[in-house]
C-alpha cells in the first residue's frame, strides 16, 4: 500500500460520514469484496437486509452511482452488477485500506456471500 496521505484520509472520513448508515454499509461491503461485483440480492444479504425488502432498489444505488462512488451495470431488467468505483480517488484509498487491514471483515463478507450462493 502506498504511504497514507493524512489529508486524503480526513477527506475520506468527512465525505463518508455525510452518508446515511445504509450507504456506508453498502460502500464498506463493496470495498471489502473488491474486485468482485455482486448482485442486489447478494449485497442485501451481506449488509444484513432481507432480499425481499427492496431497500436497495429505492434509488439508493442510483444515488451512489450518481456520486460516482459505485459502478452499477444493469445486466437484465431485474439483475444488477454492483461494484465499487476503484477509479474514484477516495474509494481507491478505502480499497487499499481494506486490503491492508480488513482481512477478517473480508472473510466474513465472503462467507456471507457463499452462504447466500448456496441458498440460491
Amino acid at each position, binding site marked *: 500500500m502506498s504511504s497514507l496521505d493524512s489529508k486524503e484520509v480526513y477527506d475520506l472520513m468527512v465525505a463518508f*460520514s*455525510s452518508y*446515511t448508515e445504509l450507504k456506508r454499509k453498502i460502500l464498506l461491503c463493496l470495498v471489502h469484496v473488491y474486485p468482485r461485483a455482486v448482485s442486489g440480492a447478494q449485497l442485501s444479504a451481506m449488509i444484513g437486509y432481507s432480499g425481499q425488502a427492496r431497500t436497495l432498489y429505492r434509488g*439508493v444505488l442510483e*444515488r451512489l452511482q*450518481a*456520486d460516482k462512488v459505485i459502478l452499477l451495470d444493469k445486466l437484465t431488467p431485474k439483475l444488477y452488477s454492483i461494484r465499487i468505483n476503484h477509479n*474514484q480517488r477516495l474509494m481507491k484509498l478505502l480499497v487499499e485500506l481494506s486490503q491492508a487491514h480488513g482481512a477478517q471483515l473480508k472473510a466474513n463478507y465472503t462467507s456471507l456471500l457463499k452462504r447466500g450462493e448456496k441458498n440460491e
Partner: protein
Amino acid sequence: MNKIQSIAKRDYLLLKGLEIGLVALGITLLILSINAILNPGIPLMAKIIPATVPVFEIVLAASGATCSTMIWRWYRIPPQIQTNLSTYFTELGYSTKKGLFHTLKVQISDDLHFKIKLQLHKRTSGESCIFKLESMQLPLVQKNPARFKQIAEQFFLNPNSNQQTFTTTCELEEIHLRSLLMTQALEQYLN
C-alpha cells in the same frame, strides 16, 4: 421521516387528484366547445345549452382554481421541511430564498450559492422525499477540468462539466452534512 413520507404521500395524491380534475375539466370544455361549434343537436346537450346555469363560467372558475392550486402546490415546500432547512441554514449564517418548483436557493455569501430542489412525489412510499443539491455555475471549468473533477471526488459530488456545476442527491438526514460539503467544495474551487 415517517411524517415527511406521509406529507409527501398526501402531496402526491393531491397533485394527482388535481391533475385528473384538470384533465376531466379540459375534456368537458372540449366537448362543450365541439357541441357549440357543430351543434349536432344531441337531445341531452340541447337541454343543457338553453338552461340558465352558467356552465362555462363555472367550468372556467373551477379550472382556474385548479390551476392556481396546482401552481401553488408546485411552488410551496411543506412547511416542516422548509422550517427545518431554514433554521439549519440560518444557524450557519446562510440565507435562503424560495424559488419555483420546490426549489430553495441557499446563499452562502454574495457570490456563493447553491440550490436545493425537493423531489417530493417521486414515490408514494419509502424514500419519497429526495433533495437534489446543485451548485452555482462555476467559472473556468473547461480550463482546468482535472481540478474540477478532483474537488468533486474529494466531496463525493458529481461534476457536471457541461453545466459547470457540482450536483448530488441525498435524503433529509444527509442534507446537513452534504450541504456543508457542497459549500466547502465551492469555496475550495473558487480559492
